[in-house]
Each structure stands twice: as structure tokens, then as C-alpha cells.
């Protein structure tokens, strides 16, 4: 192992290493980052939710967006699978229906990055007791 010779070296090392535990830090404070919840029940998986889930985890990292992608159970919109719920800090959660890779790309670029709304938003018809 190379020696850490100065404080600047240490800080540089830390910034390189930080990505390794970024996910854990985000999990501690999920409210502070963009959360993407992919509905991964049977109906979701059958219509391609898995592909979407992997796309989100990889692309968010590639595009340097600090976010947290999790798999969740059925959200109840089986007609519109795959469904994805997106929580941007400070905004109400939004559920997108019929999400494929192309749509996922739009969600990241348009909604998460620029705050523009897209087609295919499922209007909220429930209140979450956790929130």
C-alpha cells in the first residue's frame, strides 16, 4: 500500500473511496437524496421492471446523481406496469406508469434534473400512512 503523505492526499483518497459507502450514507438519510422505487411484484417483473431497476441504478451513478434506487412491492397499478415512484427532496412523490428504459432516461433527464413533468404520471389516489 502506498503511504498517505499529506492531509491533501488523505482527502483525495477519501473522495475516491467515498463512492464505496455512498449507498450506505444515503440509506441513513434517504430524505436527502432522490429516491427511486421500482415496483417489483410479479406483474412488474413480467413487464420489465427488472431491466428498468438496473437501468436506474447504473445510470444514476453514471450521470452523477446522488440517489437511491430500491425495489419495492406491488404499488397497485398493475395495469400500468412497470411503475416507478420518484421522490425528489422537497417535492411530493410522483408515480410514473409504463416505464421502460427510454422513459427512464426521460425521467432522469427531464424530471429529476430539470424538474419538468412528463406524460404518464399516475395521479395519487392514496395517502401513505408512513409519511
Amino acid at each position, binding site marked *: 500500500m502506498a503511504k*498517505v503523505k*499529506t*492531509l491533501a492526499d488523505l482527502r483525495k483518497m*477519501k473522495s475516491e473511496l467515498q463512492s464505496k459507502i455512498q449507498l450506505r450514507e444515503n*440509506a441513513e438519510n434517504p430524505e436527502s437524496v432522490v429516491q427511486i422505487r421500482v415496483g*417489483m411484484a410479479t406483474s412488474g417483473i413480467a413487464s420489465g421492471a427488472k431491466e428498468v431497476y438496473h437501468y436506474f441504478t447504473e445510470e444514476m451513478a453514471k450521470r452523477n446523481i446522488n440517489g437511491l434506487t430500491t425495489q*419495492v412491492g406491488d404499488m397497485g397499478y398493475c395495469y400500468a406496469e412497470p411503475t416507478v415512484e420518484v421522490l425528489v427532496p422537497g417535492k411530493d412523490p410522483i408515480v410514473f406508469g409504463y416505464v421502460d428504459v427510454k422513459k427512464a432516461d426521460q425521467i432522469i433527464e427531464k424530471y429529476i434534473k430539470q424538474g419538468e413533468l412528463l406524460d404518464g404520471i399516475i395521479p395519487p389516489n392514496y395517502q401513505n400512512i408512513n409519511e
Partner: protein
Amino acid sequence: MSEYKMHMMVCGGTGCRASESDTIVEKMKKELEYRNLDEDVQVVITGCFGFCEKGPIVKMLPDNTFYTEVKPDNVTEIIDEHIIKGRKVQSLLYVDPNKGQAEPDSKHMDFYKKQIRIALRNCGFINPEVVDEYIAADGYEALGKVLADYTPEQTIDIIKQSGLRGRGGGGFPTGLKWQFAAQNEADKKYVVCNADEGDPGAFMDRSILEGDPHSVLEAMAICGYTMGSDEGIIYIRAEYPLAIERLHIAIKQAREYGLLGKNILGTGFDFDITLRYGAGAFVCGEETALIHSMEGLRGEPTVKPPFPAESGYNGKPTNVNNVETFANIPAIILKGAEWFSAIGTEKSKGTKVFALAGKINNVGLIEVPMGTTLREVIFEIGGGIKDGKKFKAVQTGGPSGGCLTEKHLDTPIDFDNLLAAGSMMGSGGMIVMDEDDCMVAMAKFYLEFTVEESCGKCAPCRIGNKRLHETLDKITEGKGTLHDLELLKNMSNVIKDTSLCGLGQTSPNPVLSMLEHFYDEFLGHVSDHKCEAGQCKSLLKYNIIEEECVGCTACARVCPVGCISGEKKEVHIIDQSICIKCGACMDKCKFNAIELI
């Protein structure tokens, strides 16, 4: 390669390892590789999550799913359901015994809600055997900052302003202690970490060393810088093999990175750390005894002054701090004295780690702000008393502390409040007692420990505690008199006043506090020869209820000493002079005809 999508944190503390958490890790890695998932899921061995009651603990991130009592057989289920299908394994989720429902997210668990983790910040968060993870979590940044930006005096001032007090039991202000050691000029000085955790039921120091060893190394180096020392020694009991192993790994890695050794971070500061093993004597937690043990002498205390800050290890100025105290230091340096002093009460700042044990639902390790009440700790975080029984008392401070009762439940816990209530903070052990515990027997239990652990140097402790123990024994045997209760009190006060070190000065505390809060129970033992809790066997009497006995002879046949007599289909009788009170007859009787009086 992209980063892992999921992190699977498996507790690698002593408790969870004893329940095969290492086999879980091995199997998980193998199965993931077999399914080509090893690039998506990272398996991380961590330090203690604190929820030892339900170990082994496996926490899935990022969704904070908290699996409890996981067995190696559950590994494939977790992969198939959680990792592949994204469904939580319901049978492994923690079920809140009070609410009766499964808790899918650890953030919502009552156990964690009130906790603030400073000393335990990295336990359960990083792999203690990988220095890179510690560095990623701001590790060694505090040392770097101190060496680059602060003078030793400024650093001591930060610690003083933070209000940090020694977490080993005494509660002495840490900054002041460092200042004394810094002020004494000498050619050689030592930083000693006291990892001789001897309080029965306390295991926070072990868990910190197992879960986050680097934080202690870093803090020791910071302390070395402030007092002008280049050598640190960790005095650790040999009974902590896992903590020792992880410390060795941590020291080796820190040396390889040059974070220990010569010219640290190019600042010209030298500091290195070695380990010294203790044989696990309670008295060696006392700093002068600890230093003598390190010198190869008998672990016996000496009169202070001279304090170790003037003349300690090898006659040189030495600063001794406890593990938990050190673990707080890097966080204070990075976040500032004001941040730390904003937590806690007026005279006790920050947090304190407590080890919950005894008749409590959530046995484990918790860290709460000073000033949290006992009620919050026992009933909210601890989940209340086991089996719905009634709370009776809680012993804080181990064998040096005292018991607190129902009337203290709403007292905010801090150093001074506990002292005022006749107990002490100690190292943070909390043993909870319910209605089935006999206080005389508890007092005897603690005395048994101190008698065993007394070094024997001074008479009050060596002989006095022995006499105390004999008197308590006499009372539990039903042979005590009212005079004995007076004797207990007087003897206790003399031992406290005349003993040489902390061990003897505090050993009568359990007796005194239990006498004070449960005098009626002591009185019951001596005047009515009754033990309400049913613990003191000599005071128990098994009796056959004439109306219920059908004369089936089952009890007579099971009795190991043959003290039950009676003809078939006639009422049986127990000969009390022979009965050894084993209770076998009562267990055997199908007609509930045997009672305990």
C-alpha cells in the same frame, strides 16, 4: 464496473458470530457468486448493531431491511426473495413484541428511534477490517486536521469546550486530564487506552473495538499530539480475542498507510501504538493498578497523588482514557465542540452507550443523549420487561453502582443525577430486574463479584467485603437478625470511607442502595423468614395441599432425597428437614397440589 446496487451488512460482533454469522457471510458470498450476483451485491462484515437480543443481524441496504435471527439456512431465501425478486422475507423481519407487527424498515424501530450514535457511529456501518471504509467515512480526517490546523493547546481547548467527560466511570473532564499530562515536561510520555472492561454486563468497549478500531487509534494519536507523546499502548483483556484480532489488523493497516509511525502525514509527528494484554482483573480498570499491571507488577492500585499525569507508566507522565471516551474524540474534532456540547444535559455532554441486560426484551447496546430518562431507555428502546412482568429495579454502574427503582424512572440519566440518586454512571452497564428478583440475593451476587476481584491490598476492601458477603449470605439462609441489617449499613460506610481505591470505595454501593430502596424486603428475610421473590431457597417451603392431593405417588417417586411419604390414594407429606427444595415434586404434580410458601 459500476458500484454495488445493494449492500448486505452482516453483524460480525462476538454475539452474532457465536450464532454463526461468519458462516452466513461465507455462504452468502458463495451463493452470490454462483448466481452471478457478486458484482451487484456487496457482503459486508460489520461491527455490532446493538440489537444483540435477536442476532445474528443482517441489514439490507439501501432499503434498510432489518433481518433478525438469521441462520445459514436462510441465505438462499434472502437471495431468491429479497435480492432477486425484491420481496422482503417476512419470516425474518423483526416483530415488535408490543405492537405485534413486523417492522420492515429499521428506521421505524423503537429501538433505534431515540438513539444518537456518536461513539458507535461506525458500528454496523463499515467493515472494521478495511481501513479504506474507515477513511471513506471521514476516518483519520480529524487527526489530519489537528496536525495541520491546530496547536496542541487549541486541540485541548476544543475537547475542554466540548464538555466531554470520561466514559469509564469516573466522569472526569477529558480535556482537563489531557492538559495535566501536557503540562508535565518529560523526555517520554505515554497515551494509554483502558480497554479492561470488567463491569459484568457491560460490553460497549469491546463492541467499539470490534466494530470501529480505527477511531480509537486515531483518537490516541490526537491525544499523543496534544501532550507530546509518541507512544500509545492499549491495555486490553485477553478475554477479548476478536477485539484484539481486529486491533492488530487495524494497527497494521494504519502503519502501512503511514497513519501511524514516523512523520505522520508529513507533519513530523511520530506516533505508534502497541497492545498489552491483561488477565481480566476488575481492579485493573483502576488506572494506577492498570499501569502497574502494564509494568509487569501485580495489578494493585497505589495512592493518588501522584496522578498518572505526573508519574505513570515507567514513572513517566501518562494519560489514561477509556475506549468509549476516545471513540468520541474524532467526531468532536470534525464537528466541533459546540455541536457536541449541544447534546446532553448541563453538566454531562454528548451521549452515553449503555449495555442493556437482564430481564429486558431488547438486550443489547444502545447510545442515547445524556439526559434521556430511564423510562425511555427501558420501556421504549429496551422494549419493556420480559414476559410482561413488573419492573422492579435497574442496577446501573455494575458492582460499583446502585439500584434505581420505579420512582427514579423519570430521572434524566447523567453523571450527577445518578450520583444524587445513590448510584453512578459507571461504564454504562444496566441490569434490569423484575418482580422475580430478590434484592438481597442481588446484593449478595454483586458482593460475590467484588470479593473475588478485590486485589487484597487494603484491609477494608479485602476483609470488609468478605464480612459483608457473609452477612448477606446469612440473611439469604434465613439466619439473619435485625442487628445484621444495622451491621450491613455500618460496615458499608466504613469500607467506603477507608478503602484505598475505587473498587473498595464503591463496592458497598449495591448493598446500601438496595437496603435503602428495599428495606422491607430485607426485613422480610430476617423477621418473617420470607423471600417474596421466591429466590432464596432456604426460605422456601414446598407444601402439599391436602384437599388437592389424590395420592398418585408421582411426587414421592421423583423426589431425589426421598423426603415425601404417604400411602397410595392418601395425602402425602413432605419432611421439611430433609427437603432440598429442588422443586421436582411441584413440576411433576399433575393436580397442582404442591404449593410454594
